[in-house]
């Protein structure tokens, strides 16, 4: 088919597809869905961590957390920009988030209930995100791949900071160590769900693989994450809340227990612990900001209309 001339050849030769290149409509739509969902996740992801900025226990930790959340806003911006190269406006994407038709990562529908959660989000949530995202740096769509290079670099930094926070707390009082363990207990399973359904239940895997958007399956990435994380948990001195977790010498991987997919689908459907709060916060920010955006628009028009002096 003429409109996509060269598309398959480029994919085959591992040459990046660029915004002006012909591409199949379904490829474009898949990318828009995925990149905007990723951008929304960065923005919504500011909320659970933002919840603790005002309560950070030292000024250094407060500064680190502020810088991290600021980076997440920045990631949101590059990703919206990458999606815009596919012909969709940021306003359209944001509207889809606010009306509930676009998704964001379900992990952000869990609450942050103690300071240790900030460390665990860095260590486990960012760790899982990196596992998912590193392959995207080689994604077939150029602007997305390049955005992901930058995102992954910063996320690795965040992950180390999160782990460092937990190491500090584990060197503290028994109450602090208990706080870390409790946070790990709460986050472990939701983090494993971040890789999505098992391969046999996953809708988008096949075509995304074919198009070079996705390079590893959900289950492969999940296994990679578990294998990397178990030794880190041992060093930290926390127990991962899974009695079935153990090394399988034959497979050369850790085995782990069954995931509660019922919980996963409930959260995806909007019934997670914080879905309503997250959407309400985004909608309120948008509505409260309407007068500001309108004033900025009107001011810009006035500037154009006025003779320059």
């Amino acid at each position, binding site marked *: 088919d003429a409109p996509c001339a060269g598309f398959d050849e480029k994919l085959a030769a591992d040459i990046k597809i660029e915004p002006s290149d012909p591409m199949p409509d379904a490829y474009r739509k898949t990318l828009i869905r995925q990149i905007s969902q990723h951008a929304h996740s960065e*923005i919504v992801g*500011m*909320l659970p961590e*933002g919840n603790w*900025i*005002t*309560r*950070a*226990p*030292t*000024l*250094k*930790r*407060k*500064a680190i957390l*502020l*810088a991290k*959340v*600021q980076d997440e*806003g*920045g990631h*949101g*911006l590059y990703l*919206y920009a990458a999606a815009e190269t596919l012909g969709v406006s940021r306003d359209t994407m944001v509207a889809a988030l606010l009306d509930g038709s676009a998704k964001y990562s379900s992990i952000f529908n869990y609450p942050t209930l103690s*300071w240790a959660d900030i460390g665990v989000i860095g260590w486990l949530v960012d760790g899982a995100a990196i596992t998912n995202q590193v392959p995207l740096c080689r994604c077939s769509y150029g602007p997305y791949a390049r955005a992901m290079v930058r995102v992954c670099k910063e996320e690795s930094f965040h992950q180390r900071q999160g782990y460092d*926070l937990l190491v*500090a*707390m584990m*060197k*503290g*009082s028994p*109450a*602090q160590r208990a706080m870390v363990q409790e946070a790990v207990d709460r986050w472990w399973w939701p983090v494993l769900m971040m890789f999505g359904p098992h391969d046999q239940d996953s809708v988008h895997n096949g075509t995304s693989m074919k198009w070079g958007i996705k390079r590893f399956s959900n289950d492969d990435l999940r296994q990679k994450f578990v294998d990397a994380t178990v030794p880190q948990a041992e060093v930290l001195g926390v127990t991962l809340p899974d009695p079935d977790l153990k090394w399988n010498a034959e497979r050369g991987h850790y085995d782990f227990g069954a995931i509660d997919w019922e919980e996963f689908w409930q959260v995806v459907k909007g019934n997670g612990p914080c879905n309503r709060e997250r959407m309400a*916060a985004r909608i*309120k*920010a*948008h509505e*409260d*900001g*309407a*007068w*500001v*955006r*309108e*004033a*900025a628009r*009107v*001011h*810009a028009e*006035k500037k154009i209309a006025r003779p320059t002096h």
Partner: protein
Amino acid sequence: MAEIDNKDLIEYLLRLGDSTLVLGQRLSEWCGHAPAIEEDIALTNTALDLIGQARQLLSYAGELEGSGRDEDALAFLRDELEFHNLTLTELDGGDFGRTVLRVLLFAAYQVVLWQALQRSTDARLAAIAEKSLKESRYHLRYGADWVVRLGDGTEESHRRMQAALEYLWSFTAELFDRDEVEARLAGVVPASDSLRSAWEGIVLPVLAEATLPVPIAAGCLSRGKYGIHSEALGPLLAQMQFLQRAYPGGNW
């Protein structure tokens, strides 16, 4: 030049350090709630700069005090009446308009103050001033830009900005009030009242461009920097200090 008393310098550093800390804390409340991502990032970044300035100022105060209190002991283990921040910095944030107006008013104050403190005979304070000046100039541009856009925007934005100005303006007199602590620090720090005209030189043209008439100053002087605050500071500190209070001696 007479020897200065460290107690005076500590007091002065707390006034500056607490002001940057408390405004940083207020601005960080916006995180995830601003009118656009760009503003989320900008306000968070401003908060980050202010927290950074607070760390340097409070660390220096703690070292001068010499009783082992570091930046965190000063930030998290003093109660309201021991805080010496400007009242302007602690007031409830209000809407985005009041927020950017406060950024303008405070950053303009910081710019003129840092310019003067760059020439302080206290080398450490001069170095902090030099490093901070660049940041405050950036905050000033950000605040001024938004104040102009919102003041000279729609009818609603103008009304909101005028109300914000009426409210905040009465707390600006405190910025230029001077007491004996400053008098005894002559040479090391500028007299606060000497900063007013430079500050007005920055702020008044912005307000004029924003079509916002300057209110008449109120008769009562707010006294946050002398330790007498508004009702807004207590709840802010209760949140900020919770973990250090609830888990004394913790390792973070």
